[in-house]
């Protein structure tokens, strides 16, 4: 049943992109044809493209695992648009640049900085795509039992169809629709879930104890894990426990460490404490509900998260592109203002799922797949055909999230890749005939296919981490490379190409290194772990310092047109500049 929902969403997206949505078909009315997208509808589109797997599944998963501190994710993801609104939106729209590399070239007149920025856009795009694809794998397995690699392949295939067919036709309309689909898919089930929770006596996590099963629960372990059991408990196991093979045999799970093998089903009785992966005990109820408790160095981690999300939003490749649908800087500001409210409304919902998940799907703490909680709740709380229907709705919403974000990102990455390839080729070949120019379009689309395939391959080999965590890292990279470039580029005359290049390399390079370490295998605890998984609090100041410092050292290289380009960026459209 849920597979049908997934197939429907995929098919609809593919059809929309190939044939386009043609409301009223072609018109002969120029007034209708040349009417720009209204700021409100553009805001829906931005919301649709921005709300990714991290928002839809990830936040609820993290709240289930770590509690109140994780509420900052929703705040940060939303408030990033506030910074964008205040400092970047309108000037960036006026700059005429479509991507950060375009901005770098227009503002600093340097091809070198442009190329560094282009590489960073591609890397950030891939890093952001990775969790989307992994989230798709997890979703597909949760709802249909398909193997983990199936989800990434499905999403990549749909994205490739989208990009290779020439991009999303009527993309603004499709993305605007996706926002409402995602909002509805989360908001409708939440009402039923809350009613069911009330009917269940409105329970609340036990303040003094770790999470426990409310009802007898069968947990399926797909990948072997080492778990720690607190109190001895009598369970039924079908599969491998430690070294023994069991076939639906009752066993006493003694306190201490156990290894549960691949594809093992464990049935826990009601009231049993949930075993947890070795060395990662979940916080008790009281720590879970209170902020700044239950994790290592919570104050640092919170500020790092806020800096990354506040300053990273402006650097995300798919966010900036959308602003050009606005006719002018003023409309860009109005759009951002609406986006703020749309996101604020959306982010009220995931925490509810996270909290309910703590009560009703605690076994995810044992398997570590907390991102699945949103998908499992309707069936667990409601059951029956109603639960199945709501589950289908949630699954459809999740796939809408994967597809809209993934295709938007892939288009942006492909655009930047294609542009660089094009320039490279243009420098080497002379006059071209019509046929060769036609081939150019095909080659650009191939660049799009390549842009989609790399993260797909990566998603199959890289260790899976919580979706929102990896997206947080992508924000951190963007915050420590593009944020200084954009803010200083827009607001400071003294920025030089050398300073920008050094800042991008230092900030972006340092965070990318921490990403690599985090992906390969981070240290389990202590300051090193916090500094590496939440780099923004030190890497953003580093990037700013390097960019400002090197710019001051190379003061003689301030590009000659600086005053004029800043004038362009900051003059409202209603003011007619005298022409030279």
């Amino acid at each position, binding site marked *: 049943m849920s597979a049908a929902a997934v197939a429907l969403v995929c098919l609809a997206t593919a059809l929309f992109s190939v044939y386009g949505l043609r409301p009223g078909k072609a018109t002969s009315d120029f007034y209708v044809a040349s009417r720009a997208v209204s700021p409100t509808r553009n805001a829906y589109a931005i919301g649709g493209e921005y709300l990714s797997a991290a928002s839809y599944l990830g936040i609820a998963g993290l709240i289930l695992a770590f509690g109140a501190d994780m509420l900052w994710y929703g705040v940060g993801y939303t408030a990033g648009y506030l910074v964008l609104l205040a400092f970047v939106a309108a000037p960036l729209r006026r700059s005429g640049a*479509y991507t950060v590399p375009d901005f770098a070239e227009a503002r600093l007149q340097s091809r070198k900085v442009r190329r560094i920025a282009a590489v960073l856009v591609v890397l950030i795009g891939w890093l952001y795509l990775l969790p989307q694809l992994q989230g798709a794998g997890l979703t597909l397995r949760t709802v249909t039992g398909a193997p983990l690699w199936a989800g990434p392949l499905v999403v990549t295939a749909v994205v490739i169809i989208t990009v290779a067919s020439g991009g999303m036709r*009527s993309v603004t309309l499709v993305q605007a629709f996706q926002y409402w689909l995602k909002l509805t898919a989360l908001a409708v089930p939440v009402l039923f879930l809350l009613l069911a929770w009330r009917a269940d006596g409105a329970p609340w996590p036990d303040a003094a104890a770790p999470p426990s099963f409310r009802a007898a629960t069968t947990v399926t372990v797909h990948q072997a894990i080492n778990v720690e059991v607190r109190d001895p408990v009598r369970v039924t196991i079908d599969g491998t426990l430690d070294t023994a093979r069991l076939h639906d045999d009752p066993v006493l799970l003694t306190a201490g460490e156990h290894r549960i093998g691949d594809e093992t089903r464990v049935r826990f009785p009601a009231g049993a404490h949930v075993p947890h992966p070795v060395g990662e005990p979940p916080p008790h109820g009281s720590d879970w509900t209170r902020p700044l408790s239950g994790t290592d160095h919570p104050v640092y981690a919170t500020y790092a998260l806020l800096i990354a999300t506040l300053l990273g939003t402006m650097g995300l490749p798919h966010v900036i592109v959308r602003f050009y649908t606005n006719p002018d800087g003023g409309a860009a500001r109005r759009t951002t203002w609406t986006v703020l409210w749309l996101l604020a409304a959306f982010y009220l919902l995931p925490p509810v799922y996270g909290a309910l998940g703590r009560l009703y799907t605690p076994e995810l703490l044992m398997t570590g797949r907390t991102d699945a909680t949103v998908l499992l709740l309707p069936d667990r709380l409601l059951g029956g055909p109603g639960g199945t229907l709501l589950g289908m709705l949630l699954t459809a919403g999740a796939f809408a999230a994967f597809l809209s974000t993934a295709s938007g990102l892939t288009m942006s990455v492909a655009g930047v890749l294609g*542009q660089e390839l094009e320039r490279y080729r243009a420098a080497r070949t002379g006059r071209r005939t019509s046929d060769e120019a036609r081939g150019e379009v095909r080659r650009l689309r191939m660049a799009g296919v390549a842009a989609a395939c790399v993260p797909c391959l990566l998603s199959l080999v890289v260790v899976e981490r919580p979706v929102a965590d990896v997206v947080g890292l992508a924000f951190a990279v963007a915050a420590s490379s593009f944020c200084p470039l954009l803010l200083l580029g827009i607001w400071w005359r003294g920025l030089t190409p*050398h300073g920008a290049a050094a800042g991008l*390399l230092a900030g972006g390079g340092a965070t990318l290194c921490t990403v690599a370490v985090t992906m*390969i295998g981070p240290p389990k605890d202590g300051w090193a772990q916090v500094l590496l998984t939440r780099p923004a609090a030190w890497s953003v100041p580093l990037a700013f310092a390097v960019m400002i410092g090197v710019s001051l050292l190379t003061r003689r290289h301030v590009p000659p047109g600086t005053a004029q380009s800043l004038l362009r960026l900051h003059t409202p*459209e209603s003011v007619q500049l005298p022409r030279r």
Partner: protein
Amino acid sequence: MLGFSTATTALLAGLLLVLLPAAALVALRGARHRQYGTAQERAAYETLHTASLAAPPLRAGLGTDSARRSVKHLRALLGTPALALTDAAGEVLVWDGREADQHAAGVPELARQALHSGRTVAARIDACERLDCQLRHAVVVPLAVAGRMEGALAVYAAQSSAGTVRAADEVAGWVSTQLELAELDRSRAAAAEAELRALRAQISPHFIYNSLSTVASFVRTDPARARELIVEFAEFTRYSFRRHGDFTSLAEELRCIDRYLLLERARFGGRLEVSLRVAPEVLSVVVPFLCLQPLVENAVRHGLEKRTGPGHLTIVAEDGGSEAFITVEDDGAGMDPSDLALMLAGDLPVEAAGIGLRNVDERLRQTYGDAYGLVIDTAPGAGTKVHVRVPKFHPHAVQNAPGGP
């Protein structure tokens, strides 16, 4: 998973912090100063490198700024204690080296001598009161570009020798060459600009003639309509005769096409059907001024004028990531592709309507590069479809984009 101990990771992170900016700086500097070859070869490389450093500022022409940025390298090239560059009037543009106070004042007089005679002037300087003055001799060489004096190079040394004069002569010759190249650059840019201006689309005389006769036919029968058409015609010409800016937004361009088609429709009555499909995302894309109207005009003339039945015209603008795709299609007579290719290459004398196509093709290539020429699907009797591809961002376009909505 690999087990990293806390200490190791902290160390790693620290190393990264130090190494990355260092690596960045090294990468920026480049490995220019590698040591190889014999001492003589190295000296030659060094000289060539110094010369290459002085060249870029000079390629912008001789001015205070370029003189200031190149003089240091020129002095290194000559190895003299002081060096000055003057403008064509003999006024000092820049003095590099010691004792500027005592000597800079004397430069204009010597420079004027050299500039008037057009020959190298060597002089002994006794004006200086310091006993240990290192600048007893001056060699002033005029810098001639295409027979015109652009400035002078004044070289100061403790001793005057044939070698000093020779070196000064050579360096002045080299500087003159660079200045000549600068002038060449300037005239090349001016030529390109003139070409672009010449290419600047103009509305065709046929259209003006046809429009006015159409209006004339309405003056008696339907004066209100005639007035309306005249107003539209005035608006259309105002847009197409505007003087400023080579770029406009796609929305503006569509508005212009709308006015044009209104006039053509008045002429053709119900025979001209137009459908439009425009993605709102590309409306704000910056396009070359009047790059679509000639295509539409071509479609109207080719598609409609030579036949009796109704003709259909389709204009589509789509979003393609970093580019916008625009097509103009008619279902008219079409043309022979080989003739078209010859016409676009400029090898075939073109009929009036073809000028528009060729002009747009040339301007697109001039602005965005050869990859962005027109792509045309056509065959006799099969109609014509013209594809235009415009990058959404182009540094040149941004500088000249229209300022207001």
